[in-house]
C-alpha cells in the first residue's frame, strides 16, 4: 500500500468508527464530470443515506465502491484497506455487496437458488469439489438452506421458494434481491433505490426490512429518492449535487440547509 494509503489508514483508525472512507473520488465521462471529487465516510453500523437530485452522481459513486466502475481518481478504503479499482467480484469478497436500481435477479433460477447464490463462495463451487466432495458441500448446503429458509420466512416468500424468480412481481423480485444480499452477511450493503418499481403495498415492507437491518447492526449505504423514507431510516445523510458532496448530517439539518434546498429546486 502507498504511503498515502498508510496515512489515510491511521487517519481512519484514529476516527475508529468509519467502515467506508471515500476520499477525492472522481469519474469523468468524456467532458462530463459525473463525480467530481467526492469524500465521505460511512460509520460502522450506520444506515447512511446518499441523496441528491437526478444526475448528482449517486449511482456512479455506488458503482465505484462496488467495483463495477473504475474511478479516475481518489481512494476507497474499507476497514482501512483500499478496494478502489477491484473488480466487482473481488469487492464482493471483501464484503461489499450491492443491489441494482432495476431489480436484478436470476430469472430462470428459483427463488431459493437465487438466495443460495448469495452464500459467499464455498467449497462446493470448485470443479473438483463439486465432483468429489459432494458429501461435504451437501452438508454445508444443508446449513445454508436452513438459513435461506429463515430468510424466506422473514421476507414472506416461503411459498414462492420453488418459483422462478422471473415469475414474481417487481416488488417480490426486489425482496429476492435483498434476501440474496442478506445471505452474504455483507460487511457493507449498498442499496440503490430499493423502492424503485415496487408496488405501493410492498414499499413499507421493504422499508421495514431495511430498518431491521439497521437494528441488527449491519452497515448500509442507501441511495433513495423518497426522502420521507430517508428521513425515517437514515443517519447520517450525505447530500450530493452535480458530482459533489454538499453536506453531511442529519436529514433535518440537510433539509434546512439553504444550499440543499437550492440544489433540489435549482438542480
Amino acid at each position, binding site marked *: 500500500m502507498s504511503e498515502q494509503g498508510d496515512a489515510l489508514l491511521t487517519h481512519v483508525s484514529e476516527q475508529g468508527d468509519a467502515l467506508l472512507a471515500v476520499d477525492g473520488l472522481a469519474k469523468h465521462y468524456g467532458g462530463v464530470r459525473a463525480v467530481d471529487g467526492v469524500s465521505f465516510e460511512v460509520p460502522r453500523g450506520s444506515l447512511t443515506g446518499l441523496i441528491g437530485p437526478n444526475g448528482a452522481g449517486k449511482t456512479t459513486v455506488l458503482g465505484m465502491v462496488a467495483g463495477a466502475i473504475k474511478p479516475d481518481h481518489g481512494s476507497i478504503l474499507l476497514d482501512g484497506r483500499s478496494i478502489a479499482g477491484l473488480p466487482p467480484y473481488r469487492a*464482493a469478497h471483501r464484503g461489499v455487496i450491492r443491489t441494482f436500481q432495476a431489480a436484478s435477479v436470476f430469472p*430462470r*433460477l428459483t427463488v431459493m*437458488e437465487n438466495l443460495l*447464490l448469495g452464500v459467499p463462495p464455498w467449497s462446493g463451487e470448485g470443479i473438483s*469439489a*463439486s465432483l468429489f466432495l459432494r458429501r461435504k458441500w451437501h452438508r454445508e448446503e444443508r446449513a445454508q438452506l436452513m438459513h435461506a429458509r429463515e430468510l424466506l420466512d422473514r421476507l414472506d416468500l*416461503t411459498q414462492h421458494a420453488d418459483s422462478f424468480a422471473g415469475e414474481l412481481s417487481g416488488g417480490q423480485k426486489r425482496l429476492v434481491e435483498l434476501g440474496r444480499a442478506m445471505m452474504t452477511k455483507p460487511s457493507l450493503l449498498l442499496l440503490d433505490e430499493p423502492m424503485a418499481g415496487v408496488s405501493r403495498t410492498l414499499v413499507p415492507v421493504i422499508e421495514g426490512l431495511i430498518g431491521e437491518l439497521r437494528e441488527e447492526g449491519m452497515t448500509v449505504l442507501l441511495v433513495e429518492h423518497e426522502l420521507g423514507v430517508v428521513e425515517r431510516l437514515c443517519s447520517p445523510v450525505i447530500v450530493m449535487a452535480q458530482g459533489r458532496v454538499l453536506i453531511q448530517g442529519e436529514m433535518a439539518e440537510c433539509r434546512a440547509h439553504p444550499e440543499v434546498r437550492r440544489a433540489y429546486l435549482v438542480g
Partner: protein
Amino acid sequence: MSAATQYYIATIVVYICVNVIGAWGLDLQFGVTGVLNFAFILFQAAGAYTAAMLSLGPASASGGFQHYLVGFKLPFPLPLIGAMLVGGALSAVIGLITLRRLRSDYQAMVMLVISVVATVVAESVVGLANGSAGLSLIPNPAKSLTGLTLQTQNWLFVGLCVALMLIVGVLMYGLVYSPYGRVLRGVRENEAAVEAMGRSATRARLQVFIIGGALAALSGALLAQFIGAWAPSEWLYPETFVFFTAVIVGGRGSISGVAIGAALVAVGIQQAVQYMPIGSDPTLLAALEWIITGLLTLIFLWLRPQGLLPERRRRYLRRVKTGFAATKLQESAGT
C-alpha cells in the same frame, strides 16, 4: 444376428455415444452457462487429429504416404487422454483471447471465423495433418487386441464408448447439479448480479470453455478411432450447428434432454432419411438431413424453445420444510 446387422448396430451405438458426449460439452457451454461457441467443431477435430497422431506412429514410418506432425505409437488410454488435454488447451488459448478481450457480439463472429480459418489451415498445410486428404489407418484400440474375432473387437469398442459416455454423464450431473452448476447458470441468467455476488463470470466462462473443449475432443478422438480416418470435410463449420440443434431440440441445460436430442438429431435424422422412399442418391440424402435439421431448429425455437425435456427446476421447499424441523430439534438437543 448376422455380422452385418451386428456391425450396423455397433455403428449406431458408437455414433450415439460420440454425439452425446459432444453435445454435453456444448450444452455445458451454451445451455448451462450461456457461452455461444461457434467454433465447437474445431475442438472435436483437434481431439480426432491428436488421437490419430498419438497412435499412428511416426509419419516417416508410413512410407511417406501421409504427412503429419509429431507421431507417436502410444498404448490405449493415452491417445484419448492426450486428445482431451489438447482440446482443453486449445480451448484455453482461444477462450483467453475471445472471452476476455471481445464483446459478446463479436465473440460469436470471431469464433465462426476461427473455425473456418482452422479448416483452411488444415487443408492447405499438408505437413500438419495430411491436408485435405486427412489421416487414415487410425488404429482402433480394440483392434490391437489379438486373439479376438473382428466382431468381439467391435463390441469391445462399443463397450468403451458406452462406458465413457456414462462416466461423462455422471460427471456432467456432478458439475451441473452442484453449487458450481448454480454459479454457471447464474452467469447465463445475469452476469452483473453474479459478479456482485462475488463470482467471476469470466473465470466461469473460461472453465466451461475448457471442459467443453475437452469433451468435444474426446468425442472426436473416439469417432476417429472408430472410423479409422479423419479429414477436414468432417468438420466444416456448419457441423457445429448440428450440435446446437441437438441441444435446442433436447432442452438447453437438461442433461438427459440433450442426450436424447443428440441421439435424435445427430444420428436419428440420418437413419430416418435412409429409410425414406426417395432413392439412394447420397447428395440428396445429405441435403435432406440438413434441411430437416434446419427445420427442426426453427420449429423448436418457435414452438418449444425449452426443448423436449426442459431443464429441471430445482425444488428445495419440501426438503427444507422436513429438514428444518429435524435440524431445529437437533440444535435444541445439542445446546
